[in-house]
């Protein structure tokens, strides 16, 4: 029996389909969900969410939110969720360079430092997900 997966963000329904396995970044480490998982409610961290459907694999870059596992479905409520194919790689790279430049300057305010670090982390994640998509496409899984 496949899993009914839904990924929602405050702005849209990002994904809704039947899948075989979901691996997501929980706050306490990576978390794999297979069919018949016990009911679970957890916070999500920042990272890559992988969906396996038969031999296909898709990746989302997600940031924050919750994961709810019910007997009938799995719901990911993310602050932000972007499919590998949707990510603008050039923009992510530009954001990364900018964040790195900011971090390279001396005498940063603590708040600015935190913001720059978060921006860098986000850019790196988006680059990773987007590049993976370019390399492998959504179809194949080794």
């Amino acid at each position, binding site marked *: 029996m496949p899993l009914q997966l839904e990924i929602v963000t405050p702005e849209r329904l990002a994904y809704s389909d039947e899948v075989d396995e979901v691996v997501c970044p929980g706050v306490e480490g990576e978390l794999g969900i297979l069919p018949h998982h016990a009911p679970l*409610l957890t916070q999500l961290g920042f990272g890559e969410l992988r969906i396996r459907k038969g031999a296909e694999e898709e990746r989302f870059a997600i940031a924050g939110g919750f994961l709810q596992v*019910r007997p009938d479905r799995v719901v990911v409520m993310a602050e932000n969720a972007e499919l590998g194919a949707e990510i603008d790689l050039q923009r992510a790279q530009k954001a990364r360079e900018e964040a790195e430049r900011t971090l390279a300057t001396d005498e940063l305010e603590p708040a600015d430092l935190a913001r720059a670090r978060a921006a860098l982390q986000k850019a790196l994640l988006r680059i990773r997900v987007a590049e993976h998509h370019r390399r492998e496409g959504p179809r194949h899984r080794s």
Partner: protein
Amino acid sequence: MPSQREIRRRIASVRNIKQITRAMQFVAASKLKRAQDATLAARPYSEKLDEVLADVASVLGGETHPLLAKREGNARCLVVFTTDRPLAGALNANVVRFAGHEIAEHQGDVTVVAVGRKGRDALRRLRVPIAAFLPNFGDRPAFADVLPLARLITDDFLSGTYDRVDLVYPQFVSTLTQRPVLETLLPIHPSEDTHGIPGNQFIFEPNPGAVLEQLVPRYVAVRVYQAVLESAASEQSSRMVAMRNATENAEELIDDLTLTYNKVRQANITREMIEIASGAEAS
């Protein structure tokens, strides 16, 4: 009787107005489509969040979080959503009148946070204390845009400035109907429907308290975001209908004026002919 030239000038100016209202009608119609889609797209998330909150609350019981606790005090805050721009029909007037009733009933206890310039101006005329003013969020509000507002309200609630916070916004019912509604935002009242699974069967990671801690501020922000989206859709539909009426009225006016113009023209011709005829007779 106005002169022919005067009437012609009036027809031209009404025709200009008609062009403008017509353009505004079409702009609003296309924006409405987008605003409506955004409102619908945001619904699943807020529904899911409701469910999760119900799950957690059923495990922890009520009053486990300061934002869920009911308070005795009477200090209230109304967050009133209106538009920045005029020409949106009776929308803003309705919202302000609705909020005004609520304020009058609880005279002295209510402070307003005005979102949208029109509401601020109208409420200021009613001499309601306005704690904060934010311009409206525009045609395409993003979730991140509403976070400062949500934080502001939450902080004031936690610090005890208000004991209750309500949202007043025009709910988008249909293109023709937008109804002002009042929704209590804080304290949060979680729904009790856990959709078939008792909350205590869930595994919580790291633990229910920590999940709740993260969940509650997000829940507040999502409720505010929903109100913003509904107001945006209401604004566009109300403006579209108002501008359609204006265009139709302009057309009617042009018809009337054209009729008058023809009458005047005919009267002039008749008069001239009589003058010529009587002139010829006299000679």
